[in-house]
């Protein structure tokens, strides 16, 4: 595989999974906070759905997104099937429940009286939530790592909604599957090593930030 194609695949993997993780945090952080801090009818059901969503098989998500974005599907007119955007959509559906569920668990692990204490010191609702996020920063960073880990390593959804099209939607995981199917095990192993190195580097950086915050 030419070097420029390899870097193209690697950058697309990072871009797609990075955007999907960012969107998942933007959805999961407030939604997880709401589930942790507010009591409302249906909250337990929502928590159960989120916890179930944390174990969604990527291939099932891929199938659902593919049917939705298919030309004859309800959102077919958007012409998103077999685009990087379609992969981002599928990956957000995979990662958002992970970030939401772990955010809710992180905030529920804090002493519930801390909220009252912060409000009793004159915090606005938003200031109170900001302090709780800061106090739970270690498990929240773990939620971010888990969210990223769930999408950078998935293949089923990316394959189904992206189509593994060369120069367009081929990412590291789908390229590994392709090379394996072709019997090019050396290439597949090299791509796997690259994927592992990237995830190791990113998780090392996040872990370093996490543990620095612990000191």
């Amino acid at each position: 595989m030419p070097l420029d194609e390899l870097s193209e695949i690697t950058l697309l993997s990072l871009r797609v999974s990075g955007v999907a993780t960012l969107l998942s945090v933007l959805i999961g952080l407030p939604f997880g906070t709401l589930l942790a801090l507010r009591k409302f009818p249906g909250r337990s059901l929502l928590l159960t759905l989120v916890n179930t969503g944390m174990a969604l098989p990527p291939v099932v998500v891929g199938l659902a997104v593919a049917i939705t974005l298919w030309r004859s599907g309800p959102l077919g007119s958007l012409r998103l099937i077999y685009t990087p955007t379609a992969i981002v959509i599928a990956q957000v559906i995979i990662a958002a429940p992970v970030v939401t569920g772990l955010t809710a668990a992180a905030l529920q692990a804090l002493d519930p009286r801390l909220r009252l204490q912060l409000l009793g010191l004159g915090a606005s609702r938003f200031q109170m939530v900001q302090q709780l996020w800061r106090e739970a920063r270690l498990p929240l960073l773990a939620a971010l790592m888990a969210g990223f880990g769930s999408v950078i390593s998935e293949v089923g959804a990316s394959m189904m909604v992206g189509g593994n099209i060369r120069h367009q939607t081929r990412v590291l995981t789908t390229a590994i599957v392709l090379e394996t199917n072709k019997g090019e095990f050396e290439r597949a192993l090299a791509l796997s090593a690259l994927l592992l190195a990237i995830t190791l580097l990113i998780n090392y950086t996040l872990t370093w930030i996490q543990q620095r915050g612990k000191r």
Partner: protein
Amino acid sequence: MSALIEIRDLKIRRQQGIVLEIARLDIERGRVTALVGPNGAGKTTLLLALARLLKPACGEIRFDGQPLETVSTLDYRRRIGLVMQDALLLDRPVFDNVALGLRFRRLPRPEICRRVDEWLERLGISSLRSRKATQLSGGEAQRVALARALVLQPDLLLLDEPFKSLDEISHARLLADLKNILPQMNTTTLFTTHSTRDVRELADEKISLRSGKISE
């Protein structure tokens, strides 16, 4: 002397039903009032209601002559200081913990530094300024929690068992310091306790609660 807090026909309901029922209670401005009573008598519930952290089922609380419902919750809470039973400090240096309420009020940084340093000094914990709150002893943590509320110079100070879980020496020292500080501040203070010694040494008034009602 006028009352800062006037309570009329107040009822607080929690999951187990009505837990606090006060027909009439006035708390005089600038006085230190002790709330005594057995566990479950409603002492903490009353403090939380006064901090507007519990909503009354019925009745009225007036603050400085105004019904509480007519004052914005945030504006009101920024006139009080609350110290709960445990210190509940954040996993940050002592300075940041004490500065917390001032930062909520968006005070200028030099003003925050000046006031925090003043109160660390007054409570004898200046040497802990940079130490992480998680590394403090129980007595030190309680002093930081008190400094965090006192630095706000509140109109109403609510202390829920401020001496709980302190050893005898720490208890006596903190009691002596509060006995010195509270009259100087002239802040209306309400504190809960089980100790007759705390009442004797610190309080101008005593209110006894039993099963959610004032018993004397």
